[in-house]
């Protein structure tokens, strides 16, 4: 045993302080369990430091400046200039405030905090290597462990993030200046959020996507609304092309792509952002010593209580097989794991996992699409309300998109919703609750919705599905 390696014990050890881990730790402590949280980098994990939060801060500023500069129609004349260093300070200040808050909340709830990298010794102990050289390590013995080590960005051959011209999403969020020309590899949600942001900040953005549309996990009429708007924003999108490499040019770089048929294309840029996905971090903590075996892609299989094959070891968040890699899923899984350890009658049984994309306009979805409902054996009743017919949408100047609700024809139970349009990320909350509660179309239609709001469109979509909409023609 090296100097400083004293074994201490804890009822619950949580590894990783992202939105999965810190929430799990706080809830475990709230349940009266002696809880220790170990983090090697920064409280709040990917989400608060390099993901959700900094991206949304940049999106807000870019969007406000862009909107104000393009609102002649509503009488506004302005030529906004964005000072990137001020914007970065603002964004960093928010991150600091939130990560500081996480630390405080952990302490206030009685969570023991340890900085360092955890590696399993066996199925009841980890060794934690502290930060820098010679800072030693310690052993923690645990009764229960919750692994919440999150994910890392996927690197593709030929695009090494070590090069300053090659950006990961994290690099993009820390950008000191706006590149004149930016190539974005990958038209998924992170790629599209950042493309939109940099386009609004003034970059010429080219998106290269292997599949035949952006946002391939969404229905094509949903993705279409975002694609059309991206075109208006001047984003140049190329489908069916994979990035094959890049080389330095006089003044910048040339990114090369290849189609399936071997046709090559070249795009000039200052930076290339590679956003093709994320993979779970399960290969750096000697997890095999604990007897837990990730699948070939690195994900960990869990049961309804987020237990791994080793009963007292739980896994949550981005490392979990089958649930989407989203912060709020990580947090919910953290709550389930913590409460299950405490003996509460809990399970991860959410009927409705909402997801949002903060593009322009936003996307918010929850539950089943029409197709999924059919596959599950329902006869779907579908209702829509275009924002074009919403008084509130008109008065905000944002009228693209629609609310769609999918329900079961026979029972009326709401099964899912797809929203693309202004505040879609917020509007989806009501429908998530509706699904969890077992609400029927009638319930949403009979609930008074404030006028004039975008949320009225949710009510209208429900009425449309019932064939009794007031503000749209019924199908």
């Amino acid at each position, binding site marked *: 045993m090296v100097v400083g390696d004293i074994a201490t014990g804890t009822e619950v050890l949580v590894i990783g302080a992202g939105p999965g881990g810190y929430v799990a730790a706080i809830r475990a402590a709230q349940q009266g369990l002696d809880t220790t949280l170990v983090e090697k980098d920064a409280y709040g994990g990917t989400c608060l430091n390099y993901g959700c939060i900094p991206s949304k801060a940049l999106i807000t500023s870019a969007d406000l400046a862009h909107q104000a500069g393009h609102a002649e129609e509503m009488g506004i004349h302005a030529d906004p200039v964005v000072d990137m260093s001020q914007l970065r300070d603002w964004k960093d200040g928010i991150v600091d405030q939130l990560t500081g808050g996480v630390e405080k909340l952990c302490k206030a709830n009685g969570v023991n905090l340890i900085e360092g990298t955890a590696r399993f010794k066996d199925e009841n102990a980890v060794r934690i290597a502290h930060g820098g050289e010679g800072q030693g390590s310690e052993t923690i013995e645990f009764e229960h462990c919750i692994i919440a080590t999150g994910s890392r960005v996927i690197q593709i051959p030929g695009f090494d993030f070590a090069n300053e011209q090659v950006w990961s999403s994290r690099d993009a969020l820390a950008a000191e200046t706006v590149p004149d020309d930016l190539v974005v590899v990958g038209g998924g949600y992170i790629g599209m959020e950042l493309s939109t942001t940099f386009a609004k900040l003034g970059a010429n953005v080219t998106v290269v996507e292997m599949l035949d549309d952006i946002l391939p996990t969404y229905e094509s009429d949903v993705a279409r609304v975002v694609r059309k708007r991206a075109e208006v924003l001047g984003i140049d999108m190329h489908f069916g092309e994979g990035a094959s490499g890049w080389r330095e040019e006089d003044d910048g770089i040339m990114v090369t792509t290849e189609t399936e048929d071997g046709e090559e294309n070249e795009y000039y840029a200052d930076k290339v952002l590679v956003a093709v996905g994320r993979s779970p971090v399960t290969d750096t903590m000697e997890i095999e010593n604990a007897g837990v075996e990730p699948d070939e892609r690195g994900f960990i299989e869990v049961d309804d209580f987020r237990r791994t094959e080793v009963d007292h070891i739980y896994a949550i968040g981005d490392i979990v097989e089958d649930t989407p890699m989203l912060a709020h899923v990580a947090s919910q899984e953290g709550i389930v794991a913590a409460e299950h350890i405490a003996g509460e*009658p*809990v*399970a991860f*049984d959410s*009927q409705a996992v909402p997801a949002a994309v903060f593009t322009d306009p936003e996307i918010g979805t929850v539950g089943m699409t029409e197709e999924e*409902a059919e596959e*599950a*054996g*329902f006869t779907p009743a579908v209702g829509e309300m275009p924002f074009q017919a919403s008084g509130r949408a008109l008065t905000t100047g944002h009228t693209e998109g629609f609310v769609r609700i999918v329900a*079961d024809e*026979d*029972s*009326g*139970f709401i*099964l899912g919703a797809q929203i693309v349009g202004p505040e879609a990320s917020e509007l989806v909350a009501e429908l998530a609750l509706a699904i*969890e*509660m*077992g609400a*029927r179309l009638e319930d949403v239609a009979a609930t008074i919705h404030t006028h004039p709001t975008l949320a009225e469109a949710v009510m209208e979509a429900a009425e449309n599905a019932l064939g009794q909409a007031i503000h749209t023609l019924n199908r």
Partner: protein
Amino acid sequence: AESGGRVFASPSVRRLARELDVDLASVDGSGPSGRVTEGDVRSAAEAAEAAEEAESSRPRNVEINGESATEKRD
């Protein structure tokens, strides 16, 4: 209580079902369109308990004076 292989009940009712060890899928929901309510879960739990009690207090099928005793039923 199932529609398309799914039970419709609120999160608090689902939690209660776990707490009382009631299998939601086997409960007949009395709510709109068969939604399972708190009352349905509690009745199901009571019924299960009663059945269990009946089970444990049921007289064995013993021979008393050469005659088979009848089952006790409520």
